[in-house]
């Protein structure tokens, strides 16, 4: 009996350990899909539930499913805020040459602008600016930091 109790306890501890480690790997994997950042550590909100930024794969300006979802929410909110204008800032990570990154940031910002326009936002309300690799949000030199820096951020224009 006593032995059996101990064994049960032991089993429970082991199971808890497995669950914990599974949780940890899931969380880590959940931060990036491929090399696109999927977490929300750096994300700010334009309004409740409306994320201000989307993330990109290395050297790419393609919008992921999650990015398109974020941008549809941005567009829905922008349609309600008819008097507001926006600047879309395109950014790159530090792992490319400066001039190419300026062009890449511009391409990313325009990919966002184009998508917002297809959801009914007038292009005259949206301006773009590329910062290339000049304004990282995470100072680190790690794949996670770079994934957070490959982004396009929608900000209210003044």
């Amino acid at each position, binding site marked *: 009996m006593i032995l059996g109790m101990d064994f049960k306890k032991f089993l429970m501890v082991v199971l808890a350990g497995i669950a914990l480690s599974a949780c940890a790997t899931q969380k880590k994997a959940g931060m990036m899909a491929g090399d696109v950042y999927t977490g929300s550590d750096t994300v700010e909100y334009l309004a409740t539930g409306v994320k201000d930024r989307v993330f990109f794969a290395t050297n790419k300006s393609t919008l992921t499913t999650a990015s398109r979802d974020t941008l549809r929410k941005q567009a829905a909110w922008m349609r309600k805020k008819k008097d507001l204008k926006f600047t879309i800032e395109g950014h790159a990570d530090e792992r490319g*040459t400066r*001039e190419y990154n300026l*062009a890449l940031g511009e*391409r990313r910002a325009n990919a966002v602008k184009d998508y917002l326009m297809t959801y009914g936002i007038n292009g005259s309300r949206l301006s773009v600016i590329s910062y290339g690799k000049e304004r990282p949000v995470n*100072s680190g030199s790690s794949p996670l930091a770079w994934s957070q820096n490959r982004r396009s951020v929608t900000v209210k224009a003044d």
Partner: protein
Amino acid sequence: MKKLILTVFCIFLFNGKALSLVQVDITRGNLDPLPIAVSPLHVESGSKDIKQDGKIIKNVGEKISKVIEVNFRRSGLFNPLKKDSFVQNPDIAHVKPRFEDWRLIKAQALVTGKVKVTDDKLRVEFRLWDTVAAKEMIALAFSTTPNNWRRVAHIISDKVYKRLTGEEGYFDTRIIYVSETGPKTQRYKKLAIMDQDGANVKYLTLGNELVLTPRFSPKNQLVTYLSYFRNLPRVYLLDIETGVQEVVGDFPGMTFAPRFSPDGKKIIMSFAKDGNSDIYTMNLETRVVEKITDHTSIDTSPSYSPDGKYIVFNSDRSGLQQIYVMRSDGSQVKRITFGKGLYGTPVWSPRGDLIAFTKVHKGKFYIGVMRTDGSGERLLTENFYQEAPSWSPNGRVLIFYRETKSDSQGKGFSAKLWSIDLTGYNERLIETETDGSDPSWSSLLSK
């Protein structure tokens, strides 16, 4: 910037190259630099001290010889010998060196000279001697304003370099670069200019707006660069003598990656609109704008060949960043890089025979050179991050910048200027007051 008034009196120029035994081969990595003695320049009696920027400079003859020594040592081609082994007084050595004494300390070449400083004039005379053949190789005199004493040292260095290597020097030149301070997420960037040895640094902008990629005109005191003035990234032109700035062209979007044409009359740059970057030129006299590339990909980092007939640039039209060459009218576009990895920032050598570039492969950054058809690739240096090479005006040295890894707080981050010889030897840090990036080398200020 004060204009230099420099008069050169040629006392006697020994021009019999075949007679001299001392020669420096700069085409190979120089592992055996030439031992050279730079005797302190003798200050003639009655000379005054130089007053410069509130400082008093005594014994300018010795100061000039030190600047020359540093130039020589940094070139990697010369080994300036310690002055405490010199046995002959500078004034006597300048008139008639005892060659056997200089040979005894292993000097193969000897620089001697004298200076005279009056209120408004600095007169410098120097000679280069071949101690092995016991012959004078150069004798020259200069007159200039006393404040130009460092330039005198650079000009002497260039004359000696040319006499001993057979090629133009690069010491009487300047570097324009971006001075960086502040945290990595919010860097303050200013345009800065300095002599090639790091002296006489001056800041040309205040740091209120982001500035990037300054490049010298090969012909005059103009600089072109990218500024985020009023949050509109545009290519600007700056006259470093007058301080006058102007935006280049009237483009409805970002212009970037500017460079001058070899005659200094045009600016070539990228213009980004609707997610597409193409290459344009603008004639600075007529203001006529021409579109050079027309492709849905990113076309950027253009650089002319020194004869102006070709343009090398960077494009991702194949899917990833590669280097292409075309005629200067945009025709006959040809990809020249096919190696593993990405290629960027191509710059045509002033000698015309090579293109320097940045290569990114397996998470490492390389500075390399290749022939203008893409063959003969040689990688000179590998690092965590480095890019944007710029050629010395004689095409023998490349200057570039290098960044270090940092943690998420930005700790460990730095951006520094480095130089390396075309041979891949003689890699050197160029000390700057602040962090630095995007260096561009000027032409020789005096020829």
